[in-house]
């Protein structure tokens, strides 16, 4: 496994991302901007769902879907570039898998809430169960953000010489 990751890290594209300052930092910047947008908009949906800002028509949040899809694509693409730059560092770290799992679960929950509210505007269903799901979504988004930051501090393997 480590041999494979080392080979991947020796590829031209990995070196290019890692050692071209603007590519690496460009990816970091786009990753941060897009994650702020995607996580931020998801938090807004979930705050509404748990009972804050109650006068926002919950079903209308669906209008932000095209922008969140674009944000998500940017997050994924920039994240992939960052992963290709340091594959061994990320893929050998359990925190990376925690981050991915939290993102995936948070996305499914948020998507489900938005889709459900769009179909049944004004919102229907059991308020207690909906709120619990929204709180879980909030916790998962915060976990993914924290895991993203802890990734930079918890790696055990660093093969590349150039490191930010």
């Amino acid at each position: 496994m480590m041999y494979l990751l080392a080979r991947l890290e020796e590829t031209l594209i990995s070196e290019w991302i890692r050692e071209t300052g603007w590519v690496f930092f460009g990816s970091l910047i786009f990753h941060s901007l897009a994650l702020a947008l995607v996580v931020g908009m998801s938090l807004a949906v979930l705050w509404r769902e748990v009972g804050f800002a109650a006068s926002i028509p919950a079903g209308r949040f669906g209008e932000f879907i095209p922008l969140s899809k674009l944000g998500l694509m940017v997050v994924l693409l920039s994240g992939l570039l960052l992963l290709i730059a340091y594959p061994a560092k990320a893929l050998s770290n359990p925190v990376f898998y925690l981050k991915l799992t939290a993102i995936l679960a948070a996305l499914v929950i948020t998507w489900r809430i938005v889709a459900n509210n769009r179909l049944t505007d004004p919102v229907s269903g059991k308020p207690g169960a909906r709120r619990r799901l929204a709180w879980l979504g909030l916790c998962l988004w915060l976990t993914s953000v924290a895991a993203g930051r802890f990734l930079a501090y918890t790696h055990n393997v660093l093969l590349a010489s150039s490191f930010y």
Partner: protein
Amino acid sequence: MVDLLLNFAQVSGVYAFMHSAWGWPIIESLHFTGMCLLIGSVGVFDLRLLGMARRVPLQALHQLIPFGIAGFSLNMLSGTMFLVSAPDQYLFNPAFQTKMLMIILAGMNMLLFYRTAMGAVRTVPADALPAPRARLMGGTSLACWSMVIICGRLITYYRPPYHWCFWC
């Protein structure tokens, strides 16, 4: 200035916490959470001012702003902890200086917005656009906060004292 901040960090215990095993990543996590809260409220409101998701009433969306204030407060606190724990990495860093400038600009834009445009924005119905002045301020706010995020990431790129700064 550097000595003053470092002294504060050491006396208050912030320095010891930040340089412990998990101090920096914990505070970074809070800083990023604050950023998401800010963009998820102020940023979403700015996007609506610019004409996105027009069926969402602006007056209702404004109820999310307290989350933005909470996010900004969290980031002021966590940001101060970074600054006092490694002042030389921030004070002489052009990315940090630009970030502070953008925060001041965003603050001035916000004050101007509440003094001159918010009254009319409250009465904008769903499906309608606010006045051009309010849209311009929404765009300015979004641009400033985006620059704050960009400069925040670039702080690690510039390693003082090898780069230009205002007073070195």
